[in-house]
């Protein structure tokens, strides 16, 4: 009996030690995008370039915290962020190094940092997810500002602590001003908007009919349909460049502490190349950000929805104020 247990332990230790490899000449990526949405690309890059890549996956904000705490000693060379907020935070702390001009230039100016510290990789559009069994598409509003109307009382789900919701609020502040934004947030709180933990939880809740409408990214309902073809919920895009249909970029940048800056540049260039952009468009159903790659036929074209764009440059810096306003509005927690 005792020998069995000791042997088990020994095996465990050996296994664990075996997993502790990690050579010197590898490119270390901290990725806020999950493995399913970026892993195949990193593997492809590694095969094509001969550069070994190792990845740490976690939530973008947690990884930004980690990198900040690691400072100069960070093992990471590249940071991939699911939203401009987290990577903007690192840019603001002076922890990122500029990306070469020719790579930056592949992406429209509003989806990259003016100092070239990070660049957008793929786009997600803010949208309404709705349950057609509870509300007809014709009843959905033309602007996100109309959701404070009494007709939508208690009917809207949102995720005030979610990064992309906060990025959207920051953009709203920049375009419409703090006062209008605070009024909207307070209006939503007064209209009994329902707070959820995250986007996928909202799509699930709308599917169950807990709330007829949710404010999310376009990605999540497409994912829900891929999981379950019988999914009833649908996306609805606010028309005419309304801020409610804002295009938010996922982003990549390299650390100033990186000891392998050239390999980092190579990876970033790869992510803005044809094959990676096609992967984002066809496999993860996001909007490609370089010209010449078309979005998936499952998605409406950006021109068709008139997605709002916004220069995400000082999003990281602006987020503190955004959080203050959200806190002030009483949307959080309740």
């Amino acid at each position, binding site marked *: 009996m005792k020998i069995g247990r000791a042997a088990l332990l020994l095996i465990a230790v050996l*296994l664990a030690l075996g*997993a502790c490899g990690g050579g010197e000449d590898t490119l270390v990526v901290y990725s806020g995008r999950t493995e399913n949405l970026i892993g195949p690309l990193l593997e492809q890059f590694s095969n094509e370039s001969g550069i070994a890549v190792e*990845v740490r996956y976690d939530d973008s904000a947690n990884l930004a915290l980690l990198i900040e705490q690691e400072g100069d000693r960070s093992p990471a060379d590249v940071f991939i962020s699911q939203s401009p907020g987290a990577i903007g935070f690192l840019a603001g702390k002076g922890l990122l190094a500029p990306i070469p001009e020719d790579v930056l230039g592949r992406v429209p100016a509003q989806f990259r940092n003016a100092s070239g510290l990070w660049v957008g990789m793929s786009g997600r559009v803010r949208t309404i997810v709705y349950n057609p069994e509870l509300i007809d598409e014709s009843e959905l509003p033309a602007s996100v500002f109309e959701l404070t109307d009494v007709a939508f009382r208690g009917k809207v789900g949102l995720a005030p602590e979610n990064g992309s919701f906060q990025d959207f609020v920051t953009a709203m502040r920049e375009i419409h001003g703090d006062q209008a934004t605070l009024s909207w947030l307070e209006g939503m709180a007064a209209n009994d908007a329902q707070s959820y933990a995250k986007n996928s939880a909202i799509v699930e809740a709308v599917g169950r009919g807990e709330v007829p409408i949710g404010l999310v990214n376009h990605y999540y309902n497409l994912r829900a349909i891929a999981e379950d073809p019988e999914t009833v919920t649908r996306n609805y895009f606010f028309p005419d460049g309304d801020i409610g249909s804002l295009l938010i970029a996922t982003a990549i940048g390299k650390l100033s502490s990186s000891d392998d800056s050239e390999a980092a540049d190579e990876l970033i260039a790869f992510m803005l190349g044809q094959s990676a952009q096609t992967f984002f468009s066809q496999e993860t159903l996001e909007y490609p950000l370089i010209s010449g790659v078309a979005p998936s036929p499952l998605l409406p074209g950006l021109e068709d929805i008139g997605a709002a764009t916004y220069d995400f440059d000082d999003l990281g810096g602006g987020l503190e104020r955004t959080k203050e306003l959200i806190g002030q509005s009483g949307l959080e927690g309740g």
Partner: protein
Amino acid sequence: MGSRAASSATHGGAFVRWLAVAIALLFLFPIGYLIWGTATLGTELGPTVTSRSTLLPLWNSLRLAVMTTLACAGIGTVLAFLVARTDLPGRRIWRVVLPLPLAVPSFVGATSLLAAFGPGALIPFVPRLDGYWGAFLVLTFLSYPYVYLPVLARLRATSPALEEASQLLGGGRRRTFFKVLFPQIRTSVVAGSLLVFLYVLSDFGAVALLRYNAITRAIFAARLFDRSTALTLGLMLALLALVVAASQRLITTARVSVTEAKVRQVRYQLGNYRAGALVATFVPILVGLLSPILVFLFWIFRSPATVGVGYGGWGDDLGFLAEPLLNSAGAALVAAAVAVLVVLPVSYVGARGRGWLPAAVTSAVSSVFALPGLVVALALVFWAIQAPESLAGVYQTFPLLILAYVLHFGAQSMQASQAAISDLPAGLDEVARTLGADRRRRFLTVDLPLIRPGMVAGAGLVLLSTLKELPATLLLAPIGFQTLATKIWGAAEDGFFAEVGIVSLVLVVLSAALTWLVVLRRPAAELLET
């Protein structure tokens, strides 16, 4: 009493005390980080501590923790009693299955139970799980094993003599249970309850998904752009845990008789209560284990196995699970073994020491368990990065990861062993001492066999907690080291439900296998012998 024996005992005692203090200091690293962070950020504590946006979540967490603890204390104790001491049908199967809800990560438990119960869910004719009641129910059915496992271990070591005497004297079953048996297991009930209390305080996954405004939600919301608030709230949580853990000693009981596990225990006939007892045993399994499993299967089978990225559904290749499976098993076994050994001196001092020291060392260890895993992980990052260059090689290696697990979950093995040690009869040790046995020999031949069920129960708790651990694994594991839990997290984050389902299923099966192997196999073999 020879003076030589007395002086050697004092020496050994001093050594154990110093060891316990050193270990307790290690457990204070997370709080040290919170204090340092709060101080250097120049936080004005006053406004944060007294604002409504702090006090409300704190109060919410507190009342949720208290109510969940009471519920788990009741459920865990009753289940342990039914399984260990009655003729409950199928008790050998129940015994293996009952600890398993602890293996379900709370965010997975909440997601799957939301998909299972409520209007629009798979079982639509019940109220929706939401807010306080939702969090209470979900956390209760996922956390009762914190009480169940230590109490089960304790029930196996009580001396049957008192119960037999009570029954012979016409005490009746109810009277025997409350007057004779319960005082003997009370230390374990309290120890397990404290674990539930601390765990509920630390939980983020379930409360966030069930839309309950707990303090961990406020900490997470503030973590990136309002660091001083996040750190202050973390510190408040840690201080609350310290106070509660220190006051645990006020309600624990004096030593009572124990016996070695081989003695045949009194087994009560359920008689007319048999059906009711079966239902009572089945409900926690139904909610905490079967419902999530059925939802996992639903997610797996509803998906067409044709989707591009990720696990697509039934029939898709499962090879991607092999490495995470081995990593999970290895990390959990090592963490469980190390945690049990590391906290043993603290458990001893906690159970045997006098004065303020026992309360100080045990509450230092306990307090870490109340912190969200992210805070514990960031604290270790902070200290590892501050460490001199020569130690830099430790950063993000397997030993550091194990340290994170041990610091976070050490409270579990400590509570379980401490309960066992404090129930050791004092006379036994003195007899052995009179017979000239030295401290080491007394520990190995007298104490160890008696406290082993408690230690093994503690190892089981750490094992299950490590299997589902997320924040420290994500931040501190050697790069590329993925576990089943991190796989589940990645899949859940972007709505890959079929993948969440299959990996969760594998995690539950692995948990069952390891729990049986480590915690339950021996007792089962003994049962067959008797």
